[in-house]
């Protein structure tokens, strides 16, 4: 129990952020190194965590629990909020992914020249809160980090973004804030409906808890509470639990994002600077997906089972709609943004299938897409850094001028469109397999999802053909600027490629971790 590894993961970046903030500006060249070193240490810590993770146990491990706030609510009992961290098979892959992507992001941040101090301070703050969000297993703490990610993100997009950054930043902020308010409503309702059995007995009064472990247990619900699973309470003529579930899927659906709540994403991505896009696509979207699994499905399994087709439908619509939109884009970054929406749809489909394959596949897809989308945005960043232009039609035949770059692009594109041995394939394969095996979902849902794979092959290959094949040409005589990758870019793109290939060939690296926990998770349905 005496384990501070998880706390270290959260507080090292936050401490780094404070250090950067208070260092005088004469150290401006060292800020990027501080954020790099912090990210490296964090990744090493995460790898230790990954190594020592017990793959046979479905419970939370490395649990840290400290009493934080005990608020007496008079005769209603006590509101108990804990500083409670832990990892299991569902969030461990996400923590690992965060470690990798945040390191890549901090390498990518080396190109930022404008107001470095503020940038790196915010970046480290964002890193800390992202990891905090994944490892918290107290709903209040989770929500805290979930909300807290917004502010640094808002500033990172709004200050360092391109032309319409301010519009994109405020749109991102308001959309996600609405989402988190919906989650907050459910959080209040849940904590008021659930009591902690041990503490309640010990203290002799009702202890309302936010502990994930207690919230999933139906026996802990207080009789006559609104969200009680067996007493069918109604809100506006809708079952209360269904109401809460819908609030949650809208809330996390905005973050994911799922069609029709996706419109902030293309704006935010297009305007954000490359490292921020990488973090946004690589990790932040996964926070939404993680919320779906852990909170929407984890706390409301009865409703989720009944209404899983809503989630599957949203997933399939996201897949097809995102892909069709990607097909129509002229801006490379926008195309990648829409492809992200499409690929996150598979996560929803896999989860909604409620089969072992599907949910494992969803987690794998989250991990794989995290790596691949980070690569894709780095690719877009490479082109943008050289020409300040991202339109697909402005480039042709880049393969002859930039062979190393083209190799990385090929890995990224094929990884995304689902070539076997690369991560996209396994994720899509397992989620669709789950969809077919599922007793709840009709087969045509999964067939429609397969259409999405075809479409994603179409837009990626078409883009590859338009931009990289043929005779070398770049618009407005910018051919001279198209040098091949420098050392920093090679490190980022090739290490991500290596990670992707390893994960693609050895999917058991993820499945071993998630398997037991997912099995336990599915027992609840």
């Amino acid at each position, binding site marked *: 129990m005496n384990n501070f590894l998880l706390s270290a993961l959260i507080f090292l970046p936050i401490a780094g952020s404070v250090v950067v903030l208070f260092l005088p500006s004469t150290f401006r060249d060292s800020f990027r190194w501080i954020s790099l070193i912090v990210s490296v240490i964090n990744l090493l810590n995460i790898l230790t965590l990954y190594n020592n993770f017990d793959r046979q146990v479905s419970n939370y491990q490395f649990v840290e629990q400290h009493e934080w706030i005990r608020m007496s*609510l*008079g005769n209603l009992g006590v509101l108990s909020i804990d500083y409670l961290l832990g990892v299991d098979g569902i969030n461990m892959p996400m923590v690992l992914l965060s470690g990798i992507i945040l390191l890549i992001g901090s390498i990518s941040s080396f190109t930022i020249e404008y107001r470095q101090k503020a940038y790196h301070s915010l970046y480290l703050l964002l890193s800390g809160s992202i990891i905090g969000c994944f490892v918290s297993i107290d709903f209040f703490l989770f929500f805290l980090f979930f909300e807290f990610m917004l*502010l640094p993100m*808002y500033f990172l997009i*709004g200050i360092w973004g391109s032309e319409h950054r301010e519009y994109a930043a*405020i749109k991102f902020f308001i959309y996600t*804030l609405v989402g988190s308010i919906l989650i907050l409503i459910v959080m209040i309702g849940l904590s008021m409906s659930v009591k902690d059995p041990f503490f309640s007995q010990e203290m002799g009064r009702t202890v309302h808890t936010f502990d994930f472990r207690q919230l999933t247990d139906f026996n802990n619900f207080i009789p006559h509470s609104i969200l009680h699973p067996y007493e069918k309470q109604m809100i*506006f003529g809708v079952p209360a639990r269904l109401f809460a579930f819908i609030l949650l899927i809208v809330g996390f659906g905005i973050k994911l994002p799922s069609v029709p709540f996706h419109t902030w994403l293309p704006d935010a991505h297009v305007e954000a600077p490359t490292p921020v896009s990488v973090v946004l696509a690589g990790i932040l979207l996964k926070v939404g997906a993680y919320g779906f699994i852990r909170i929407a499905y984890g706390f409301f399994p009865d409703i989720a089972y009944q209404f899983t087709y809503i989630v599957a439908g949203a997933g399939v619509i996201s897949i097809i709609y995102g892909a069709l939109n990607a097909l129509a884009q002229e801006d490379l970054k926008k195309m990648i943004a829409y492809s992200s929406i499409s690929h996150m749809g598979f996560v929803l489909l896999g989860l909604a299938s409620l089969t072992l394959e599907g949910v494992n596949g969803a987690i794998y897809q989250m991990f794989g897409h995290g790596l691949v989308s980070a690569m894709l945005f780095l690719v877009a960043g490479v082109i943008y850094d050289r020409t300040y232009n991202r339109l697909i039609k402005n480039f042709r035949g880049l393969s002859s001028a930039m062979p190393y770059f083209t190799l990385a692009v090929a890995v990224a594109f094929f990884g995304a469109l689902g070539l076997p041995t690369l991560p996209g394939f396994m994720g899509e394969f397992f989620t669709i397999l789950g969809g077919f095996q599922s007793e709840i979902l009709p087969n045509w849902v999964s067939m429609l999802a397969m259409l999405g794979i075809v479409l994603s092959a179409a837009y990626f290959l078409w883009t590859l053909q338009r931009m990289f094949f043929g005779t070398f040409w770049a618009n407005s005589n910018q051919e001279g600027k198209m040098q091949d990758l420098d050392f920093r870019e090679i490190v980022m793109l090739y290490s991500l490629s290596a990670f992707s290939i390893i994960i693609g060939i050895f999917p058991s690296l993820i499945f071993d971790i998630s398997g037991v926990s997912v099995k336990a998770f599915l027992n609840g349905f």
Partner: protein
Amino acid sequence: MLEKLSHILFSSRLLLPDLLFGVVFLAIVATIAFSQKLDVERTYRLFNMLMITVLISSGLVFYALFEFYKQDFESVSALFGQLIYLDSISLFFKIIISIASLAVLIHVWVLGYKVVGEFYAIFMALVWGLFIMTMTTNWLMLYVSLELVSICSYILVVFNKEKDNSEAGIKYLLFGATSSAIMLYGISLLYGMTGTLNFVGQEFATFLSQNPTWIVQIAVFMTIGGLLFKLSAVPFHSWTPDVYEATPTPIVAFLSIAPKAAVILVLIRLFSSLSIDFRMIMAIIIMASITIGNFSALWQTNTKRMLGYSTIAHAGFMLVGLLATNPIGIQSTIFYITTYLFITLAAFLLIDLMALKTESYELESLRGLGQQNTFLGLAAVIIMIALVGLPPTVGFTGKLLLFTALWESYQSSGSNMLLVVLIFGLLNTAISIFYYIKIPYYMIFKEPKIGVRYYPIGFIRNGFLLIFLFFIIYLFMSPSGLINLIESLKLA
């Protein structure tokens, strides 16, 4: 006769700190009256002396109150023939008001406002009126204290005698007088129905329930009209933006918290003994206040005016706990008020500091200020997200507690209306982010105008702001102390 005299003596002794305010008020008035034809330097020295007197007396009162508070008030002391109730909750609110006035006086001092001596006298009287208001359970005393507060506020608002200032003053006066009249009418109706002036007694509740509900609702609504005016809640809000824009900032800061705290305590006392269902009207007032406040603030280009609309929205949030009509609702209201004290005072201090740098309250003038002065930029972010109610600030804890209370009330009563208010109120915070974030947005995102001269702020002023920021964060990190304190309060 002798008994009555000894009762009065006993009562006066318990109210010594309050009476001290009266003495100081008279002393200041006397000093000003008898010291004519002073040269400027001596006048300023006199003002400084007055300032210090006020600060020390506030400090003394504060300390005395605290000592009072520490003794456990098991029984409520009904003073002056039950006209005044001294209980722990009123002492708590007096402490809040003392802190607010102290902070406002320091605000006046560190920002170097040139005020005349009468300011202090009137300010003293205003605080005194608020103190009486926290203890009153009698319609007559309530009206008297409310008028004392109102008249002092009218004068303070027009203190610097500028043109738009007097326009705002007239508006304030007219609206105030009208709502006082409405309140008086409501009180007379209630007195006619119940035959008692004491509004917390059993008698009041019993007689009230014998009347038709809708008549009682109308009478109560009219009665709280005067209180809602002080709270700047809809439909008695329309004076707020004009007055806030035209009045010196420290006075606005004071008006945005101290009278509201006192009024909320009166409402808490009233609603805890109200025997009719008043929730529907409350729900409408709350939703209207939050919506009108937030939506009107969206279009503002003047920071003070924007904060004026924001206080209308916050008045709605303050009432949410009363709508919940359970003990935790009351506690969370008190918690919200206490924390809002720090947030709102900080917000007004912030815009005043920024105005000191740029000599303007317009949003446009804030361009690039955060880039030039990182501390102000950071402070703006913290204060504004505290006003929205986002973690890691105490604004979040306050809203969380309020809506937890509302949920609990919904769970036990099953009234859908409460859930509507809950969802409505929370979604409104997403609208409010749009205008609150404008201040840090202009400060940090926009490039500074070329050739603008910034004035330095100075260490003491920054330090003063830092104290508020500390409380905004600290109370989020460990709210337990304050919550336990509030829980131990006993209502008469």
